């Protein structure tokens, strides 16, 4: 009997609890997004803000994007970097997870240490690899020199710079895939494995037909998460190559940053940001669909 007024007063109390957070979240995420979209329809430039804030040619920025070879190049650089580093992370993360998936105290300690790259401040990761790629302080370069194979720095070499960044990105983020796969492996029932072993399946067959199908959803989710985050890659590029040599490592995010904060073309940079936001939205929606699907099973 006493539960009834409790239920009624609860609803009101919950709305009071929820409102401040949603108001703040709205003020700091929805309003800026709206402002961003509005600005993306103007040629706003910070050098002359009053005369450039108009809507005479609302789609001008978007039309210009299609003809801007530097932008199109940045998209292709972004795709190369994202796809290569995410693929590497998935392969390495999966391999390490399979290696560490056993109930041994040592292995669980090793698992813990492997998390370090992932939690490090990205700027420190960038610093670590700046040191690795700078011949005068890098132990790798010194070693190669000592055996008579001096190599010039990878990050100043136009053919290698992007792969050097992709490698550093993989170093930082393979633990994410490792974690996701380990979590999936730990929830895997033993029975099918036993049955397969009794039926005489070899290790590869067991992996291919039993283990892999079981961890595939975890891999897909990990891949999607990392794909979205890879569009934000900034500190590594800023510190290692600054987009160069030339525009070889200039990803879309970095190009938007240059347009806004070096050239002060706010309208144009906003249009780039809107496109990136749309991409993030689309992929998030995919993840929530996937997550929901996963729930129903």
């Amino acid at each position: 009997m006493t539960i009834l007024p409790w239920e009624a007063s609860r609803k009101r109390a919950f709305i009071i609890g929820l409102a401040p957070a949603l108001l703040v979240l709205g003020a700091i995420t929805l309003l800026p997004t709206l402002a961003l979209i509005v600005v993306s329809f103007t040629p706003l430039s910070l050098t002359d803000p009053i005369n450039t804030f108009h809507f005479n040619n609302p789609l001008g920025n978007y039309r210009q994007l299609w003809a801007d070879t530097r932008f199109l190049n940045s998209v292709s650089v972004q795709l190369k970097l994202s796809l290569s580093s995410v693929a590497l992370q998935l392969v390495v993360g999966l391999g390490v997870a399979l290696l560490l998936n056993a109930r041994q105290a040592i292995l669980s300690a090793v698992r813990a240490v492997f998390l370090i790259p992932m939690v490090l401040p990205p700027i420190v990761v960038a610093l670590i690899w700046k040191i690795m790629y700078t011949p005068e302080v890098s132990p790798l370069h010194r070693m190669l020199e000592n055996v008579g194979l001096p190599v010039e720095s990878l990050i100043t070499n136009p053919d290698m710079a992007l792969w050097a960044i992709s490698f550093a990105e993989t170093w930082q983020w393979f633990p994410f895939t490792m974690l996701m796969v380990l979590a999936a492996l730990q929830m895997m029932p033993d029975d099918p494995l036993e049955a397969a072993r009794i039926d005489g399946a070899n290790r590869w067959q067991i992996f291919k037909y039993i283990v892999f199908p079981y961890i595939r959803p975890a891999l897909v989710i990990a891949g999607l998460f990392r794909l979205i985050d890879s569009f934000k890659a900034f500190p590594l590029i800023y510190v290692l190559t600054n987009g160069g040599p030339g525009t070889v490592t200039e990803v879309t995010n970095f190009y938007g940053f240059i347009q806004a904060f070096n050239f002060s073309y706010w309208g144009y940079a906003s249009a780039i940001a809107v496109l990136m936001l749309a991409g993030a939205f689309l992929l998030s929606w995919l993840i929530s669909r996937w997550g929901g699907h996963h729930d129903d099973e």
Partner: protein
Amino acid sequence: MTMSNSGSQSAAITPAGVDRPAAGPSATRSLEQADSAHLAAHVRKGRSTESARRTAAWLVGIASIDGRVVGALVLLLVVMFPFLWLVQLSLRPTNDIFGESLLFVPSLDSFRSLLQSHFAGSFVNSLIVSTASAGLSLLFGVPAAYALTRCRFRARGRIALWILVTRMAPPIAFTIPFYMAYRWSGLLDTNLGLIIVYLTFNLAIVIWLMQTYFAAIPQALEEAAYIDGCGVWSAFWRVTLPLTAPGLAATAVLCFVFSWNDFFYALILTRTNATTAPVAIVNFLQYEGWEWPKIAASGTLVMLPVVIFTILVRSYLVRGMTAGGIKD
């Protein structure tokens, strides 16, 4: 494995247990004593057995070193090598930066000179901004997460998607409007400005993560508190919140770490007064020449809190960083 485990267990009970029962006058009495001794041992064994079991697990692990463990350890060394190189570089004496030998007397000179430079101020800024942002996000986010968990709002799914998108959104999308708003309002290059910006991702994390913790607390406890005369929020404050304390602490740590690690917002929204430690590192790289030990020392200092937190609250951190990917 089972054998040696149970062996170490009984071995641990004996020293922790009670004095051996003295041979009593009657058999019954001695039996009684033995019984109570057993019981006492059972009660007291707690800690020592636990630690003994852990040691035993380690020993078993070391004893049964196989290819897998060797492979894992070698891999660990290879993967952690760049990280360890940074740390050793920060400890090198300035006159021996490019020394070949790994055997050197560690020196704290680089750290000392950092503390006397602007870096100290940036480090303090980082601490203030990260702590305040974590605190504010908890203040707003925790009640919201609780309300979302306990009440089936119709817009729940849409709010969840909104929060996910906020987490996924590229920072540049928020930076451009925030920069314009801050230039106009004078929040550019202030700690307060950064604290507000960090709410964009921290608030989403708090609302997302705390829901899983609240969902684990049975609602019956709150109803009991209500019958005892508590209102909704006082029941929450006195009953539910204390029960989620570990999750709350972990969420706070996670917010702190995410703010601490941020580079992009701080680079753009600060200039001189409110620079955070990551921006100070970049300034070293760009303006102070290539003082490698000093640069390495600043990197080591910046990662120190994060590495410490990782060791302390690892399992919670893992849960937070993979939130949305792994279902609890």
